């Protein structure tokens, strides 16, 4: 199994970079960005991730809108929402728009990796 490329989109950069570092330690290629714009720049720079970990509540373009942008750019990229502001409604809306899964912060690294692998296998 080849290591998946992971893009972490979260306005809490401290969280994103730490998580990216932990994922890299586990053999993933991970990159953390602070918002939708940077995420789209990363995608445009020909760094195509297999899985995007996306925060829901972000200043400017929020998680669900970012999800739409990613799916427009490349529908094959799998997106997992990872948020502290979870609600059943946003989960259901996300699923309808092609979301792969929905996880609540703080998340256990083992569980997260399991979901990333599932998503990456799609």
């Amino acid at each position: 199994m080849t290591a998946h490329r992971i893009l972490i989109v979260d306005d809490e950069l401290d969280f994103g970079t730490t998580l990216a570092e932990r994922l890299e330690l586990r053999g993933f290629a991970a990159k953390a960005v602070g918002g939708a714009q940077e995420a789209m720049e990363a995608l445009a720079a020909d760094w195509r991730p297999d899985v995007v970990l996306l925060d829901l509540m972000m200043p400017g373009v929020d998680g669900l809108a970012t999800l739409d942008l990613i799916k427009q750019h490349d529908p094959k990229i799998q997106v997992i929402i990872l948020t502290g502001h979870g609600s059943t409604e946003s989960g259901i809306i996300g699923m309808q728009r092609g979301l792969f899964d929905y996880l609540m912060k703080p998340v256990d690294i083992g569980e997260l990796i399991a979901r990333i692998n599932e998503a990456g296998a799609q």
Partner: protein
Amino acid sequence: MSKTKFPLFCGPSNRDLSPKARYRCMRNSLLIVMLAITLIPLSITSGLNFIQYQQLLREDSQANARWNAESARATINAYLEKLEAAITVVIDTYSFEDLSDTRKLEQIFRQLKKEHQGLVDLSVVGPDGIQSGYVGPYGLAGKDYSDSLWFHKALTRRMYVSEVFTGFRNVPHFVVATSQKDPYSEQYWVLRASIDTETLDRFLALADTEALEDIFLINDSGVLQSGSRYHGGAMQDFQLTRKPKQNDILIYEETRGDSNFYRAVSRIPNTPWLLVLDQQGAEARKIWHVFKDRLLLTLVLCFLASGGMVVWLSRFLAGKFREADETRDAILSETEHSNKLASIGRLAAGVAHEINNPLAIIGEKAGLMQDLVGLDQDFRHKEKFLSQLDALQNAVVRARTITHRLLGFARRMETSLTLVQLNEILQEVLSFLEKDAAYRNIHVILQLQENLPVIRADHGQLQQVFLNVINNAIDAIRNDGEIHITSRRENHKTVMVAISDTGPGIAPEILKNIFEPFFTTKGNEEKKGTGLGLSITYGLVQKLGGKIEVSSEVGVGTTFIITFPVYNEGSEGESNDRA
């Protein structure tokens, strides 16, 4: 209790009264208004009835008096006319000389006496006033009447009826006399018949009826011509206040002692007499007393009946107002309560969300440290460091559990209908209460049917329902007892949960009010109830389309049975396998 505490009418100034006093004065106001509405027309109608009937009876009594007077007058008239006719026949048939013959006169007298009762004597008086013939008991033959008033009057008239007088015999009597001209001497002589006053009394007595107070004859000078019940015998004095003109019958009201009566006065034609008839007043008549008694009885019965109805109605209406107010208050309290819970829910959700982000950073940082320390073979205190980081991670997990639970609580505050399994809810609720139950040595015995069909309800509200009922059961038992919780499918439409306790039971009079808002029996204990628990429970069960019933026996225990409709997907087939 002072009077000012429960004023009769409630106005704006009574706003600061206690609720009890307010309902009391509302009831009083209703009572007074309704009493006035019913009793005033009743009293007016009865009063009018009273006056009208009294008027009618008075008119009737007057008519009666008139009729009786007419009848008595006619009787006396008829007697006199008959006697006058007989005397006229005698005087026309016989001459003065014929009648001066005592034997002849006696023969005629005997004949007349047969037909005319009360006739005392018969006499013939010559033009000189000397009685030339006499038949009768007093031996008055030869008496001189030349100075007598009656003699002179008889001479001047064809027929004369005298007043009552005593005369030579000293016994009250009256005379009927007629005169005739002697063809030879061309002088008038007189034929006279005397009648005792008892005869008049007898005729007057014929007119006596139950309603008659007195009947007598009197002359214009106020001397009684017959016996009177109230004014003495003949020849006594009595003054009439009013007298009729000519032949009219005069009727007017008189008073004797306390009672009123009607007096009818009429002249008897061709006599010096006035007939006086006293008839009972309308108020003295038996029929009036009967009417008054019946009217009073009817009035009292109507007063009692409408009074009773009004008292009942005012209590009933005030009770209904009170109920409506209490229901409104209960709804307001319930809404306030739910609003409060919803606010707490929103607050909890906000806090949980805000905490989740820093918690995630802590978790990731600690995780990275664990990763790095774990990879570094030469790290000093590696074991101790890792165990510290583990503890940090455990704390994060604990905090996460709390925030997730808070979010779950917040979600339950919003009503959202989902498919729920009653047994799961019961287990959840029991997990909250089992410590309390165990502490009080209360055994909870479960008989939950497996594969119970799911129902469509709000998870949080169902929890609240069972929490309330089971909590009440624990409160009822207090210490040492059992709570049996049974769940089963009743039929293809409903599932039920029965919760029975071995508490002291509830008395029937309390049982009927148990679901009413603000009704509580926990007042005297240290754990004071709001009286809203079962009322809210009842409302929630109804809102979820269910039904809650209670049965209880004092000394045995209480059972609450809650039923819910089974969720049907489409028209057939329950979705029990989805539970």
